[in-house]
């Protein structure tokens, strides 16, 4: 194979998930009535915000060679905290500030602190107590969701303050501001992964923890940061979720963990750690949202949507596996 052909092939493989996304968008645009319109593409970007942000935190921990199953429940707790404190109906306490816009940083800060604390607890148990990350975060997945149900009593909070809802309603270039928050997160954390020492250390630890330790990297500290970031980012996702639905219910966000995992894997992050980039994860999230939107528009019988969703995700992962095989043959 010539050098130029090889470079082209590697470019395609490196960005396969983006090509898959383009192909899926083209197919759905041609096959699904009403799919090809700017509003639908704006919807896909908007619907990707919560899952996208959640996937960033999950990807960071997975790249570092660990696992965080608690992200969905942490997001739900953050959403419920936002709902209870700042929504005005249901169980919402309707706390307000003067000036009113202060509710935005206040609610965000509370959510992120809650998420960061849970992330710190996860990190402490994994890093310091040397417990298995899968078990620790599975436990957090359960008890944090339980805390959501307990604090809400199973009831809902609704009607978030207009100053917060503004972020979901106000659009710039046809896309809600919440989507820009997600995009900013991807840009910021992609930069962190590619250009900062922390990002490089996360990749190195995920690739070979012992070698990273021997190279002088403070493995425990970096892993601790990864878990805290994962919790805080999941809380940010929950905050966006509460804004999107104007409140919180006890089952808000249920099922998102599996979609976040699917997005991370489709996006090219290795579950073994040490491999992956966040732009690919964003493409994975957009791909899932595109599929979801197509299913919504196709008007398929309710019973089959889960089957189709699962099979399409499987197809995407199979393509990704094919990519890995080709890459090995090239090496």
């Amino acid at each position: 194979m010539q050098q130029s052909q090889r470079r082209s092939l590697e470019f395609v493989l490196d960005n396969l998930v983006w090509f898959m996304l383009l192909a899926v968008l083209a197919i759905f645009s041609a096959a699904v009535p009403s799919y090809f319109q700017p509003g639908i593409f704006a919807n896909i970007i908007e619907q990707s915000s919560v899952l996208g942000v959640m996937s960033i935190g999950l990807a960071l921990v997975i790249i570092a060679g660990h696992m965080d199953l608690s992200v969905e429940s942490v997001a739900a707790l953050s959403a419920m905290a936002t709902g209870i404190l700042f929504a005005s109906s249901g169980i919402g306490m309707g706390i307000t500030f003067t000036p009113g816009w202060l509710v935005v940083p206040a609610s965000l800060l509370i959510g992120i602190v809650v998420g960061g604390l849970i992330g710190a607890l996860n990190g402490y148990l994994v890093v310091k107590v040397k417990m298995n990350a899968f078990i620790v975060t599975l436990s957090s997945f359960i008890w944090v969701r339980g805390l959501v149900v307990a604090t809400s009593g199973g009831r809902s909070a609704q009607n978030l303050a207009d100053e917060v809802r503004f972020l979901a309603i106000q659009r710039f270039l046809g896309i809600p501001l919440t989507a820009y928050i997600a995009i900013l997160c991807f840009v910021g954390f992609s930069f962190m992964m590619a250009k900062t020492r922390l990002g490089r250390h996360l990749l190195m630890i995920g690739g070979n923890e012992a070698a990273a330790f021997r190279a002088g990297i403070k493995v425990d500290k970096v892993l601790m940061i990864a878990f805290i970031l994962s919790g805080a980012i999941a809380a940010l996702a929950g905050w966006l979720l509460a804004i999107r639905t104007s409140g919180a219910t006890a089952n808000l966000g249920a099922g998102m963990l599996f979609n976040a995992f699917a997005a991370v894997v489709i996006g090219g992050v290795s579950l073994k750690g040490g491999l992956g980039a966040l732009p690919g994860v964003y493409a994975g999230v957009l791909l899932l949202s595109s599929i979801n939107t197509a299913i919504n528009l196709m008007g398929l019988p309710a019973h089959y949507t889960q089957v189709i969703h699962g099979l399409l995700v499987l197809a995407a992962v199979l393509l990704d596996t094919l990519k890995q095989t080709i890459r090995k043959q090239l090496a």
Partner: protein
Amino acid sequence: MKHLLRYGLVLLAGTAGFLHPAYAQEKGAVYYMVPTLLDEFQTGSVSALEMFLEQVGYDLTTLNADNKTDLQQSQMNDVIALAPKAIILAAVDFNALAPSVDAARQAGIPVIQFDRQISSTVSDFTSVAGTVEIGYVAADEVERLLTEKNGSVKGKVLQVLGDPGDPYTLDIQKGFEERMAAFPEVTIISQPAMMWEASNAGTIVSDQLLANPDIDIVFSHAAHLSVAAVASLEAAGKQPGDVYVMSSNGAPVALQLIRDGWMQVEVEQPLYAQAAAVAMFMDKIVAGEEIAPGEYDVLGLPSVVSVEEWGPTIKIPGAAITAENVDNPAFWGNLKPPADPITPVE
């Protein structure tokens, strides 16, 4: 050490006393198998049943199945071993729980179906509003709303189901579509909100608004789904009344949406009356006495007991809540439980 042991024993005895007979009601324990605590109707049912059963002398313990059929089956097995006075079951899966109902009854424990009717086996009592009937009431309201909006029964309805694996939502869909079949000029688009999760409902609404901008009514199968639906309508620049919104179960969030002008109709499940009916007949059920068919007054609602193949059943009519009657304290969504204690049926 002796002191420590003594204090320990006192603490243990105190804890045991707190957990058991000290506040147990005189007629014995009843178990309520709630399908989930993730929606307001179910959490409301726990407190309503507790309140009404306490009034007639029973102590209620609730077990949550987290919407898992196998977990509810295990819970049934465990509770049967405890030999309570009765089991109140709101089944996660109507058919899968039938063998557990049979096992309880064979062990001499009466089983009461609450809110979710099991017709494939015999139970000692059933108290329902009727999920299919909720679909009928919703269809009648859609007929009224479309006539009001479009001059005749024609238009487009987006039906947001709950999880497609939940027979509860499928029954509402069945009733709704059965009744709506009489109106061929009405297009019904049905989409499931997986796991009854609100943001899924919001996504469906925002997508469908683009694909079908002429949607007249969004009908969600639970009030909490309507909250997200309304958030999506608002984000799409809609004003209250541009697209009619309705849902079912009568939760407080829906009543608030009606007050805010976003929602036109909420089909209420008469939670208080359903729970009160169970308590009113509990003595008869526990004693194994015959429950006579006929009309009974349950918290002011005329309710009919009939003896069906699956046992005596009380059906309490669901009501349509609108802006005109939203403040009626009889609606459980207003969270004003009846002040007067109920009287057991003699």
